[in-house]
């Protein structure tokens, strides 16, 4: 795992800087959500992916627009990486009519039909069989897309994980199971909740390849996903990728984080920040410099501020929209 992977050859300098921008967008989006939650200005339940930017960005970086994803409760990064409009996302968190779910769904339910995002949901592991159905469609109708399914380490203990991967394997489907192992479910650590070293090793049980990768290294994530994607596109069937990462924030609001140590948190924040890692690699390779990197950061920050302004200026859903869209 710890070997340094090469920068992806197929990616131009511009594309790499675009990914840097995207990762900053993800970070600032969730930092902003955190702030507004704390101030009591947005509601619902929310789960932040600060610290996990490289998994979402890296996995989606190799996908085409027609490729599909399924997302999770911790899904803001997935949406952004698949090309969602941060204005409409922020509006959704603010429960405004211009949001992706017309202000009725909040953080955990964003889908983006135009970008192949089949949606997030609040059931841990809920997306896994859904991704299998999507991939089965691609196979049966001979469509040229691959479905990438995000889920967490905790989700890998739900029945849906085992049932879904087995089906995908038996049917040899073009699907990538992408486990973001951030070390914990809500409070239960992977070490206590599973009896194996790597969730990726579970692939063997279903007769599919498993890859374990450094999740905070964007380039390692890209490499692993590229390998899985090629296999899926070439009829080689599913892959299970486990990306090791860490959520910086609590599970959701009001989490005293008693289940982990300050040292552990500090280690991941200071030694393994995916953005610092990326900056170092790109600067080292002469693809950017500190000034340009800083500009990218500030640009993303401003876009999130603009998203907040957009959300705040958007109307609330009309009160008589309560019953729309329950049925066609």
């Amino acid at each position, binding site marked *: 795992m710890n070997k340094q992977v090469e920068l992806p050859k197929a990616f131009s300098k511009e594309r790499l800087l675009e990914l840097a921008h995207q990762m900053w967008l993800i970070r600032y989006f969730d930092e902003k959500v955190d702030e507004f939650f704390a101030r009591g200005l947005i*509601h*619902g*339940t929310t789960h932040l992916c600060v610290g996990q930017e490289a998994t979402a960005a890296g996995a989606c970086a190799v996908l085409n627009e027609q490729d599909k994803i399924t997302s999770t409760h911790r899904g803001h990064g997935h949406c952004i990486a698949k090309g969602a409009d941060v204005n409409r996302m922020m509006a959704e968190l603010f*429960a405004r009519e211009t949001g992706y*779910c017309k*202000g*009725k*769904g*909040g953080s*955990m*339910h964003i889908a983006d039909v135009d970008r192949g995002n089949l949606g997030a*949901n*609040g*059931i*841990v*592991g809920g997306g896994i069989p859904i991704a299998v159905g999507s991939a089965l469609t691609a196979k049966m109708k001979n469509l040229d897309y691959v479905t990438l399914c995000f889920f967490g380490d*905790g*989700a890998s*203990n*739900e*029945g*849906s994980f085992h049932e879904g991967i087995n089906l995908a394997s038996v049917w040899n489907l073009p699907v990538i199971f992408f486990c973001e192992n951030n070390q914990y*479910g*809500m*409070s*239960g650590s992977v070490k*206590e*909740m*599973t009896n194996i070293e790597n969730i990726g090793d579970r692939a063997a049980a279903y007769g599919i390849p498993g890859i374990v990768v450094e999740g905070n290294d964007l380039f390692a994530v890209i490499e692993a996903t590229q390998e899985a994607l090629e296999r899926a596109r070439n009829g080689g069937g599913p892959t299970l990728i486990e990306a090791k990462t860490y959520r910086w924030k609590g599970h959701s609001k009001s989490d005293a984080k*008693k*289940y982990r140590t300050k040292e552990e948190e500090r280690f991941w924040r200071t030694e393994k920040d995916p953005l610092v890692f990326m900056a170092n690699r790109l600067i080292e390779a002469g693809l950017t410099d500190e000034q340009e990197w800083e500009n990218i950061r500030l640009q993303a920050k401003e876009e999130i501020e603009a998203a907040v302004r957009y959300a705040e200026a958007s109307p*609330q*859903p009309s*009160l008589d*929209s*309560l*019953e729309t869209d*329950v049925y066609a």
Partner: protein
Amino acid sequence: MPVSNMIESIRDALGIALAADDDLLILGEDVGRYGGVFRATEGLQERYGPDRVIDMPLAESSIIGAAIGLALEGYKPVCEIQFLGFLYPGFEQLISHVSRIRYRTQGDYGMSMVIRAPMGSGVKSHELHSDSFESFYVHIPGIKVVVPSNPYDAKGLLLAAIDDPDPVIFLEPTALYRAEREEVPAEIYQIPLGAAKLVREGQDLTMIAWGGMVPVVKEAAVQLVEDQIQCEIIDIRSLYPFDQDLIVQSVKKTGRVIVVHEAPRTLGVGAEVAAMIQEQAFLFLEAPIMRVTGYDVPTPLGALEHVNRPDVNRIKKAVQQVLHY
């Protein structure tokens, strides 16, 4: 007498039960060190150890499923599900096995267990975090369903549920966890399952509610006094078995009824209550029984949540309709 909110009185009951019975186990996600999503089990693992207060992996099916095996072997499992909306992955165990084992074995095996879950809206949460599908569980033969509406009842009902020889789904209105504090005796007491509570006496109309709707109905009744309307309020609190006698007695007195629930209207428990009343007290009714309920929608976010959830105004309006029928 000590004063507690509902979450504290539930924790108190769980502590008492753990101390009283070495075979009582608490199973759930994050119930140990974390103390549960709403802190109902806070400190209990510290006191009783990780073998009694068991942190389960994310696998609701196996939380309920393992509880079945434990119960067959003589343990008393008390499962915590983080939100009622997350019971669905374990629903299969509940409907296929938990509810049927006594009947299936014709009494050779019992199935004494409790499944606790927060339910309902009113806390600015939404969708799966606000589900109020109590009628699913009421509908399943072999399962009892309890919904407390205040700290005192929560403790007494939970202790009764734990002592009950049959499986009990114990639904805790999230909106009420920290809504009020009241005197809750430190000692052990039980409130029998199947007994409703007369919350308020009145002769003009009977209001029937449970869980999160009880405080709303009480507030409406207080406001209606200004219009010289005296409402009687019954908190069913045990949805199965449910106290038909107390309801029928009240209806015979008032002749007018509204049933209030936040669950979707269609096939909510209100329908069952209304059907029972017309079977048993038809000639005493002065007006149709009205329901004030949630709409047939998943709970939305934001301001719409309050459109969906019955409030004082909707209740008062229904009362006027029933009175002026």
